[in-house]
C-alpha cells in the first residue's frame, strides 16, 4: 500500500525526517517466494506489497520473524527476483546487485583473513572504475573516523568485539557512498548495551551523511528510535499493516525523547498492530 495510511494517532506536525518526498525506491505489487521443486510448492514470503522509499529518509521495517522483511531487502538488493510486481531504484529497474546499493549484514559477513582496512577496501576493489589507491586510503580513513575505529586499521575481525565488527561492516557499506544503505538486523547479534550505543552512533552518522536507509529489525523500540517512518509488516505471507510516521525530534538520544509520552504511544501502537501476530505465531509454533 502507498503511505496513504498514516497513523490513527493524533496527527502531529513532522519535526524530522525528509523535507522533500522524492521517491528513490519504488516497489509495486511485489509478491515473492521460494520455490520447492520437489514438492512443487511455493512458499510465499511476501504478497502484493507496494512501498516507496523516499530519498534521504530512514525507513525502518518491523515485523515478526519470517514475515518477509529480509526478502524485501534482498529484492531491493537484487538477490531475490519477485514472482510478481516490479521494483525500481532511482527510476531504474533492479536487475542485480549494484554499487549504488550497499548492505550491512546481521552476521557482519567480514572476510576473516583480511584486516579491517582491507575488508573496507573490498567494497571498492571489485567494480570498475576502481578508485586509485590513495583515494581508497583517504576514503577508508574517513569512514573509519566516522565509525570511531581509527587505530584499528591493521586489526583482524577475530580480534574485535561484535560491536566493533559491525562498525567495520557499516564502514564497508558507507565507503562507496551508496545511494541507499540496506541494513538487515544489523544489531541483532550484539549485546543490549552495545546495541543502544550503536543505534546512537548510527543516528549521528546518518544525520551527517543524509543517507537513505532501509533498516530491518524485529525490535519495535529500535524501529521507533531510528526510523523516520516505520513499516509494520504482518506474518507470512508478509503484508504491510501500516506505515507509521515517527514524529519525534532528533537526535533521539540527546533529549529525553525515548522517555517521552509520544515515544511510548508510538511503541504501544505498533505493538498493538503486531501483538496478535506474535501471539498467533506462538500458538502455531506450539501446535
Amino acid at each position, binding site marked *: 500500500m502507498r503511505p496513504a495510511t498514516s497513523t490513527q494517532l493524533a496527527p502531529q506536525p513532522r519535526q524530522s525526517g525528509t523535507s522533500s518526498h522524492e521517491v528513490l525506491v519504488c516497489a509495486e505489487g511485489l509478491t515473492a517466494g521460494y520455490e520447492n521443486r520437489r514438492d512443487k510448492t511455493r512458499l510465499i514470503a511476501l504478497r502484493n506489497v507496494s512501498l516507496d522509499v523516499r530519498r534521504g529518509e530512514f525507513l525502518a521495517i518491523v515485523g515478526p520473524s519470517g514475515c518477509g522483511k529480509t526478502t524485501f531487502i534482498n529484492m531491493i538488493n537484487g538477490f531475490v527476483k519477485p514472482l510478481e510486481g516490479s521494483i525500481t531504484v532511482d527510476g531504474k529497474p533492479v536487475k542485480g546487485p549494484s554499487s549504488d546499493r550497499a548492505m550491512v549484514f546481521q552476521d557482519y559477513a567480514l572476510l576473516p583473513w583480511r584486516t579491517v582496512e582491507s575488508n573496507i577496501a*573490498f567494497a571498492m576493489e571489485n567494480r570498475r572504475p576502481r578508485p586509485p589507491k590513495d583515494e581508497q586510503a583517504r576514503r577508508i580513513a574517513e569512514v573509519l573516523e566516522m565509525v570511531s575505529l*581509527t587505530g584499528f586499521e591493521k586489526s583482524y575481525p*577475530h580480534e574485535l568485539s561484535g560491536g566493533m565488527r559491525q562498525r567495520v561492516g557499516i564502514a*564497508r557499506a558507507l565507503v562507496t557512498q551508496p545511494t541507499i544503505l540496506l541494513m538487515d538486523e544489523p544489531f541483532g547479534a550484539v549485546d543490549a548495551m552495545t546495541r543502544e550505543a550503536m543505534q546512537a552512533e548510527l543516528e549521528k552518522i546518518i544525520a551527517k551523511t543524509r543517507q537513505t536507509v532501509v533498516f530491518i529489525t524485529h525490535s519495535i523500540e529500535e524501529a521507533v528510535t531510528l526510523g523516520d517512518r516505520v513499516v509494520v509488516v504482518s506474518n507470512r505471507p508478509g503484508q504491510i499493516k501500516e506505515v507509521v510516521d515517527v514524529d519525534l525530534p532528533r537526535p533521539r538520544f540527546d533529549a529525553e525523547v525515548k522517555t517521552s509520552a509520544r515515544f511510548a504511544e508510538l511503541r504501544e501502537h505498533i505493538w498493538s498492530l503486531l501483538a496478535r501476530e506474535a501471539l498467533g505465531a506462538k500458538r502455531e509454533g506450539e501446535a
Partner: protein
Amino acid sequence: MTADLEATATPAPPAGQQNPGGGKVLEAMTVSRFAPFRNTVITIVNLSTFFVLWELLAKAQIINPLFFPEISDTFSAIWNGFADGIIGPQLWHSFRNFMIGLAISAAIGIPLGLLMGAIRTLDLILSPYVWAMAALPRVAFIPLLILILGFGQSMQLTIIVLSAVFPIMVNCMAGVKTVDPSLIRAGKVFGASRLQMYVKIILPFTLPFVISGINQGIARGLVGMLIGELLGGGGAGLGFLLDRAGDRFDAPMLYGTLLILAVFSVALVQSMRYLERRVAPWREVPKG
C-alpha cells in the same frame, strides 16, 4: 606462552589512548623470564621420566627381553644402524617415496576436490567412486597392485598416492561447499565477479580445509607407505627394516625403527599443524 596469548588476544589500542575513567588501556606486566621455556621443560622432564622408567622396567626383566628390550640397547641400535649405513638409506628411501607420493596426491587431489566442490554435476558424477575409494581399506589393493606393478618402488608409490589422495580431495570439496553463505552474499553486494568470488572468497576460505586435508593425507599416506614396504617387498624402506628386524628377532632394532617412524610422523604432522595455524589464525579460539 601464556604471556604471549594475553598480549595478542586483545587488539592493541592506538598508542597513548586513554580510558575516560583514567589509566592506560595497555599496561606493562611482569612475567617470569623462564615462562617461555615452561612447556619445553615439561616435555623434557616428561620424556626423560618415560625412558628411565622403560629402562628400569626392562632391566627388571619382568617381560621377556625379546619382546621388551632396554631403551639403552634400542638407542645404541639406532646409533649403530646410522653409523653402519643400515638405517640412513632406508629412511631416505621412505622419506623420498613419501614426499613424492604426497606431492602427486596434492597435485591430483586439490584441484579435483576444488572442482568437485564448485561444480555440482562433476560432484554427482565422481562422488560414488571417490567415496568408495576413500572408504575401502588400502590393504585390499595390494594383491592387485603387485599383480600389475610387481614388487618395488612404483607399487609403493602408488599405494601412498591411493591412500593420501582421497582425504585431500574430500576435504577440499567440503571446504568449497561449506563457504559461509553470508560471505558469498557480501561478495555479491560488493560487486565481486565469478572469478573474484573464487579468488577472494572461496579459495581463502578453503585454504585451511586444504591443509587439514593434507594433514589427513599425511596420516593415511604413512599407513600406505608402511603397507607397501611391509607387504610389497622390494627390499627398501623403513617397513623393510621392520620386517627384517622381526625375522631376525632383533628387538632393539625393531623398537628403534618404530621410534624413528614415530619421530618421522610427528614431525610431519606437527609441521602441518603449525602451517594450519599460520594460514588461518582466525580459526583459533582466542581464549581457553
